[in-house]
C-alpha cells in the first residue's frame, strides 16, 4: 500500500506530513493546490486542470510532487481513501494531523505496485484536508497502466464465475428440456 499511499498523498494532498498543504490531482475544491510529475513516463498531473479525466499511471515510477495551501495552516488534519461500491464505504490509505507554519511542501517518491493490484481498473481516490485556511477536498480517478490479464486475480475471478455459473446453466438447461418435454407431451 505504500505506493498507493504515495501516489495519493503526492497526488492529492501530498505534503501534509511535513507542513501542510498538498497537492494533488483531480477535482479539487478549496484553498489548496498540488501537482505531480512521473519521471519515467513523463506524465504530469495538476489538481486544478485534470478535472474528471481518468489518469493512467505506470505500475512503477518515481513521482515528484508538490502541494500548497493559501497560508500557514496552523493545526491541520486530513485523510485519503479509496471509494468502494456501496454500502462498503471506503478504505483509508493514509491520514495526517499536526501543527505547522509551512504552507507548501514538495518531495519525490518511488513506488512499485505489486502484480496483485489489477491494471485497467478505475479507482476513485478521495482526499480531504482541513487547516486554519479552511477545508480542501478532491478526488482523482486513477487506473494502473495495462490490461486485466496483467494481474493473476483475473484468473481466480474467471474460475469462480465459471464454477458458480456452471450449475446455474445446468439448471437452466434442465428447465428448458423439461419445459420442451412437457410441451411435446401435452401436444400428444
Amino acid at each position, binding site marked *: 500500500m505504500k505506493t498507493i499511499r504515495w501516489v495519493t498523498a503526492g497526488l492529492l494532498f501530498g505534503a501534509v506530513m511535513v507542513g501542510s498543504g498538498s497537492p494533488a490531482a483531480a477535482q479539487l475544491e478549496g484553498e489548496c493546490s498540488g501537482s505531480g510529475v512521473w519521471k519515467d513516463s513523463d506524465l504530469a498531473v495538476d489538481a486544478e486542470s485534470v478535472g474528471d479525466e481518468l489518469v493512467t499511471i505506470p505500475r512503477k515510477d518515481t513521482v515528484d510532487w508538490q502541494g500548497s495551501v493559501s497560508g500557514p495552516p496552523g493545526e491541520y488534519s486530513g485523510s485519503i481513501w*479509496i*471509494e*468502494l*461500491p*456501496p*454500502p462498503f464505504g471506503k478504505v483509508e490509505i493514509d491520514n495526517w494531523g499536526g501543527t505547522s507554519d509551512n504552507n507548501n511542501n514538495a518531495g519525490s517518491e518511488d513506488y512499485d505496485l505489486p502484480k496483485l493490484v*489489477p491494471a*485497467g*481498473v*478505475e*479507482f*476513485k481516490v478521495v482526499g480531504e484536508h482541513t487547516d486554519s485556511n479552511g477545508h480542501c477536498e478532491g478526488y482523482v*480517478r486513477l*487506473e494502473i497502466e495495462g490490461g*486485466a490479464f496483467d*494481474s493473476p*486475480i*483475473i484468473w481466480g*475471478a*474467471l474460475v*469462480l*464465475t465459471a464454477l*458458480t*455459473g456452471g*450449475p*446455474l446453466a445446468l*439448471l*437452466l438447461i*434442465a*428447465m428448458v428440456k*423439461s*419445459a420442451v418435454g*412437457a410441451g411435446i*407431451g*401435452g401436444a400428444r
Partner: protein
Amino acid sequence: MKIGKLITTALLGFMFFLFIGLDLVLFGVIPLNSVVVTIMPIIGLVLGAALVVVASRKQGSAVNTAPPAA
C-alpha cells in the same frame, strides 16, 4: 417447491452475479466504486430464486395436465 433447492439456487445466482460484477470491474468496464457491483448480486439472488419457482411451476402444471392413466 423445495425450499432447500430455492435457497441453494438463489445463493448460486448471488455468487455468480457477484463474480460477473467483479469481472466487469477487473476488465475495466465499470469503476470499482460503481453501484452496479452492489446491484449485480441482488439481481442474481432474485433470478436464482425465480428460476427455481418457474421450474417448479412448470413441473407442477405438467403433472396437473398429464392425462389420467387408462
